[in-house]
């Protein structure tokens, strides 16, 4: 059984916060050094929010919690993102 989705599952919620599409960015993990597409993150949704983890070391990259019109976004484990602005 696959427990997780890829990070395209976050596209909708992130598009409400950021003006660029973060799912098309690249990420370098600050814990294990893994470099890969943001969209490759493992996203767990069967929980009280959405949790994205590094596909290499499983470090929590992002936590997203939504209640009505309020959204909490913890990017504490994100590492460095390379974002193409156009």
């Amino acid at each position: 059984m696959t427990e997780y989705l890829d990070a395209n599952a976050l596209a909708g919620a992130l598009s409400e916060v950021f003006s660029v599409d973060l799912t098309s960015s690249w990420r370098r993990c600050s814990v294990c050094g893994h470099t890969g597409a943001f969209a490759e993150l493992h996203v767990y949704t069967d929980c009280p929010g959405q949790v994205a983890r590094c596909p290499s070391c499983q470090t929590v990259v992002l936590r997203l919690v939504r209640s009505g019109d309020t959204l909490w976004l913890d990017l504490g484990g994100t590492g460095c993102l390379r974002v193409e602005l156009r």
Partner: protein
Amino acid sequence: MGIISRGFGGRRRTAEDARVPPGQYLTDGFPVLSAGPTPRVTEEDWRFSITSEAGDTVTWTWEEFLALPQERPHTDIHCVTRWSKLDTEWTGVGLDTLLESVDTAADFALAYSHGGYTTNLPLEDLAGGQAWVVHAFGGEPLAPEHGGPARLLVPHLYFWKSAKWIKGVRLLDHDEPGFWEQAGYHPYGDPWREQRYWGD
């Protein structure tokens, strides 16, 4: 003739309804919620520790843990994702028993788990017959997807406080938010006051 007909007072509350906190619905199933891969912890490798605010640590092996007085809490559980399950039956060791081995004057606790999960509670909510480390559900060993070999059970708070795959408890002088409490969920989580999110 009155305008309001008989029976317009709404559905009569049953005894079961009275046990369901506001905003919750009942389920007969046992939904599996997980914020990461399911850790596979063998009983041989399993340890449970409590560390006091002074840094002193007491650790139990699986055999030592099972040799402690066992309790069988029968209780209702309430998940913040809005399901509630009545009459669940668990087997485990009361936190009161475990805390007897620790010299502490701490006010707070942070439970931590295999896989990195954490959750914070006032220490008084772990004491007084309100919390257990449980290893069986419905008379069967606790399945890994439900937190086996052992999980915390604190049924008077939302179920995210009942940390799966528990590894230990750190006793603290200050409150330290856990995994979900850092990301918008309520620091305490009383289902009867619907303390779901920050500010509730």
